[in-house]
Each structure stands twice: as structure tokens, then as C-alpha cells.
């Protein structure tokens, strides 16, 4: 088994409610990101996938707190390190791209400065070196006129170009791991395909591990090696793409896959999941999915399910697996 870059142990995140109480948004999750792999996290809104990624970068909003657990980055617990050390890691060993490339770029700063900024923060380079590096990176991510792009401001670029710039910026220090929070959700399908190809190429050529978050199983399938399925702050199933998509065991994963309209489902009713996506404030059940589960048994409302290993990488947390 290959080396783990990131090991998350019992990570628990709480969100401060309006009345001052703490609601658990991410509930004792544990997983690892292996060197050179693309790991996907899939889930619906409010399942805690974005909070998880933000906590890995130490970029949680002020009202969110890590209550428990460890984030081990090459053996170092990121929840315990000093702010200085955190800043050393961010942008250099670990970096991140977001859903909204427009707002994620400083509107009043030229692309060149923004792309080269991680280098200036993590080393000393001459102006010329910075320029050359930024130029090389933009060419690398497939921007056709990199010189013009360097001189441009964010609003002059198209959505796809902005996301490429974000990727260039995130990879300029050759990080060990890249976190991607729904990076293609705001893009058109054709643009999305290009960006996914680019991320995959970066992963294959430089061995950069990627933690890829999406609500779209199709996107996850196109880019990831392994997938975690999250529901209501918990990981309910984990496995390789084929484990999850072809042989899902957890009832939620199954329901999710079945409810997507595909070619062969035309004219048939979609076997969708009843009920609504739970929000953070909702009362917690032992098995979070039990209230919506068609196959829920009496035990599901009483006892939290253990996580069973089904296959080498395939784990599901369900009483039925």
C-alpha cells in the first residue's frame, strides 16, 4: 500500500448556531489521501464536504470549530500546529481551488501578481524568475496567449480561463496535494470536460494527489480513483469508483445513483430517495439516513451502524452491509 499524504482521524466540526449552541456538522470522520491518487468526496448540500476541505486548509469560517480529531499531514497534526507553520504549508505543500473562480481572484490585481504570489510567499525569486515561472505555468495549464493573460485582470477572462488561472496558482509551488472544492460546478459542460482533463493530467504527470469534491457522481467518476460518500456529516461509504458506482452497498449511495436520469431510464420512474436533505440543525439519528431509507429496520433507529469492510478498499456503514 502506498504512502498516505493526509490522514484524517475522527475529525469533528461544529457550527455555532444563532442562539450560541454548537451543532455538529461533520461527525467523527476518518479517511486518508494516498500519494498520487485522486480521491473524491461526493454528497449533497449540507453534508459537510466543503467544511471538511476547509478544515484541512485551516480556512474555516469564524463560526466553525474543529471539536475533535486529527489532521495528519505527513505525520504532523495540522489542527495542533502554530499559525506560522500553517502558513508555511498552505500554498506550498497543500493548496486549494474553489467553485467560484471569479470571486476567488482579486479583482484589482493583475493575473501575473496573483499567480506568482505563492512563490513570493514561500521563497525569494527575482522579478524575472517570477515572470518566467508564471508564464510557464499558464502555458502548462493550456492558456493560449499566456503573456496577454498575465497582464489581464480577472474580469477580462472567461470562466474556464479563470479556473485554469486558479489551477496554475495552486500548483505553482508543486504541492503534494491539491484540494478542489466543486471546481467545475459553475462551468459549462464542455468547459468542465477540459478542466477535468487538465486536473487529471496534472495528477498523472506530477503525482500531485487531489482531493476532489463534487455533488455530481458523473464528474467524480470521470476524474477520481477512490470515492467517499458523505451524508449528514458522516462518511457512509467509501471505495474505488467501480466499488461505489457498480456495486454500491449503502442504501443512500444506491438511491443517489438510481435517482440520476440516464439513457436507459427514459420513460421509467426514477427510484428517487424520499424526503429531504437534512440540514445541520436537524436532530441526529444513530444512522443519519434511517429516516429516508426504504429498507430501514428497527435497529437502524436505535443503534449506529458499524462500518464493514466489503472489499479491499470498499467500506460501508450500514446495518445491511
Amino acid at each position: 500500500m502506498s504512502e498516505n499524504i493526509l490522514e484524517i482521524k475522527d475529525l469533528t466540526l461544529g457550527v455555532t448556531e444563532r442562539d450560541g449552541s454548537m451543532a455538529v456538522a461533520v461527525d467523527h470522520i476518518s479517511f486518508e489521501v494516498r500519494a498520487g491518487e485522486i480521491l473524491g468526496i461526493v454528497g449533497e448540500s449540507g453534508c459537510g464536504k466543503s467544511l471538511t476541505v476547509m478544515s484541512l486548509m485551516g480556512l474555516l469560517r469564524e463560526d466553525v470549530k474543529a471539536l475533535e480529531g486529527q489532521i495528519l499531514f505527513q505525520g504532523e497534526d495540522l489542527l495542533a500546529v502554530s499559525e506560522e507553520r500553517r502558513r508555511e504549508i498552505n500554498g506550498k505543500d497543500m493548496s486549494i481551488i474553489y467553485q467560484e473562480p471569479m470571486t476567488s481572484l482579486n479583482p484589482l490585481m493583475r493575473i501575473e501578481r496573483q499567480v506568482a504570489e505563492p512563490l513570493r510567499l514561500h521563497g525569494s525569486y527575482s522579478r524575472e524568475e517570477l515572470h518566467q515561472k508564471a508564464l510557464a505555468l499558464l502555458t502548462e495549464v493550456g492558456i493560449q496567449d499566456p503573456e496577454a493573460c498575465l497582464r489581464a485582470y480577472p474580469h477580462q477572462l472567461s470562466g474556464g480561463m479563470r479556473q485554469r488561472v486558479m489551477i496554475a496558482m495552486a500548483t505553482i509551488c508543486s504541492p503534494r496535494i491539491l484540494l478542489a472544492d466543486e471546481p467545475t460546478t459553475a462551468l459549462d459542460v464542455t468547459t468542465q470536460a477540459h478542466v477535468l482533463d487538465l486536473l487529471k493530467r496534472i495528477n498523472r504527470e506530477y503525482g500531485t494527489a487531489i482531493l476532489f469534491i463534487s455533488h455530481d457522481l458523473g464528474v467524480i467518476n470521470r476524474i477520481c480513483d477512490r470515492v467517499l460518500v458523505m451524508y449528514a456529516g458522516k462518511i457512509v461509504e467509501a471505495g474505488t469508483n467501480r466499488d461505489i458506482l457498480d456495486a454500491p452497498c449503502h442504501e443512500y449511495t444506491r438511491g443517489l445513483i438510481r435517482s440520476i436520469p440516464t439513457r436507459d431510464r427514459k420513460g421509467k420512474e426514477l427510484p428517487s430517495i424520499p424526503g429531504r436533505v437534512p440540514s445541520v440543525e436537524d436532530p441526529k439519528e444513530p444512522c443519519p439516513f434511517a429516516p429516508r431509507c426504504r429498507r430501514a429496520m428497527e435497529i437502524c433507529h436505535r443503534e449506529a451502524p458499524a462500518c464493514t469492510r466489503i472489499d479491499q478498499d470498499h467500506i460501508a456503514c450500514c446495518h445491511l452491509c
Partner: protein
Amino acid sequence: MKYFLRKTLVLVLTIFSISLLTFFAFHIIPGDPASLILGTNATEEQVAALQEQLGTNRPLSEQYISWITGFVRGDFGSSIRYRMPVSELLKGRLPVTLSLGLIALVMILAAGIPLGILAARWRGKPGEKILNILTMLGISVPNFFLCILIMWIFGLILHLFTPGDYVSYTRSLPRFLQSLFWPALSIAIPQTAILVKYIRTAMLEELGEDYVRTARGKGAGETWILYGHVLKNAIVAVVPLIGMILASVLSGSIIIEQVYGIPGMGKLLIGAVTSRDFPLTQTLVIYITVIIVVTNFLVDIVIQVIDPRIRLSGRS
């Protein structure tokens, strides 16, 4: 360039509408201005003579045209109260008010920007509360009250200056500027508080933007983010308010000149208003308003230069 031309055209049109509005405001008065000025016990001949002098017996459009052509040539008519040309009256006073306004503006910017940054830096710390309360006090103090307090404390108790001791710039420039210091301070303090509040709000807003999160993700520290990213964007957001602040400064100087007995345009204006001296009031109103409109025009140009979003798309 197209932007500049368009803005210039807007400026000209604005000045035109200011002159129109002012002129008609003073001419659509219920009743005849001449008899209003002279009071109820004036004879008809007196009224007719004044009508002739004011030109109010001619049609309005004709009056406007002759007035505006005179205005452009520098002939602003005669003051009723002082019985001398308005241009003569203005001559010595324009530099006084402009200097007072300028000193106040410099004070506001010099104190407001650093304090605004400090206020943003101190968020969540005990210093923030004190600064917040001071800002609120500053905003809430009327400048004429502040003026009285300053005269009392710094003038009468501490003897740092003599209230009412004004030195004309024709006599001694340094002493002229010195005598404007305290009046300018009275104007500046409330406006500084407003500026601090705006900058603080703008900085905090910028700090909540996604690009700040991106910078944190790159490993940037608080200082780097504040001065490298947020400050410029916050200032760009605040620049449009400079025109507004200048308008308040000039309004402030109208009152403050009254308190300190400074012979500027403000003192002249109040005198003109209380004695219902229409030609003088009219001219002063247009003068002051045009100063503000031109400043706003310059501010627009500055924004256009510093904000690429406007510069490059050519739209505001």
C-alpha cells in the same frame, strides 16, 4: 478617452442644470422679489426702481440668458446689501474658504485612512470598542458645538490660540494658515470619524471576500493580506465618497466661518441669506456647488484610472 469625453459632457450639463435650478429657485418666489426685499411699506416707485435694477420686470427666459451670459463673463451682478459688484466681494474670500476646506480635507485624509486601517486591524480586540465609541461620538457631534468646545478648551483655558484672531493671507501667509488650523480641525473631526467608519466597513467587507480566502490558502499572513490585497480594494471602494466629504467640508466651513469670524464665502453667504441679498446668495450657491461638482468629476476620473474594472470595460 470616450469615458473622459462623456464625463466632461455630463459635467457641463450638470453645471448648466445647477445654474438653471438656482436661477429659477430665486425667481419662482411667491410674490415679487423687489417688494419682498423692500418690505410692505415701500412706495410703488421704489419697487419699480428696484425691479428695474434687478431686471425682474423682463420675461424669465430673457433674465436667465442675460444673467448667465453675464455670469460666464465674470459679471455676477450687484449685491443689494453691500451695494457693490458681487465679483468684488468674492475676490478676497474665495481663497480663504478654499484654504480652510483644503486644510480640513488634508486633516481628514491624513487621520482617517490610518485610523480606518487600525480599526479594521483591531477587529475583535478591546481597542476596537474604544475606537467604535470614539467614531460614533465623532459622527454625532455637530461641528459648531465642537467648535465652541475647542475654543473654550484650547483657546480660553489652555491659551493655545486666541479665538477670533484672524490674520489675512495678504498680511502673512504662515500666520494665515495658523489661524485656520483650529477652525479646520473643528470641521475635520466629524468627517474623519465618518471616513474611519467607511474605511473600516470597506476593509471588513473586503476581508470577507473569497479572494482573501484564496490568499490565505496560498499561505499569506494577516499583514500581507491587509496591505497587499485588502487596502487597495477598500480605498477604491471609498474614493467615491471623497466628493461627498468635500461637500460636507464646505457646508461645515459655512458654519465654522461664522463661529470663528473668518471672512470667507460662508460668512458672506450667511450674511446674504439673512439680509435676503438674492444676487449675492445666488452667485455664492453656484460657486460652492460648482466646486463640489468639479471635485466629483475629478474623483470619477481618478476612480477610472485606479479601477481596472471600469477602465477596461469603459462603463461605470
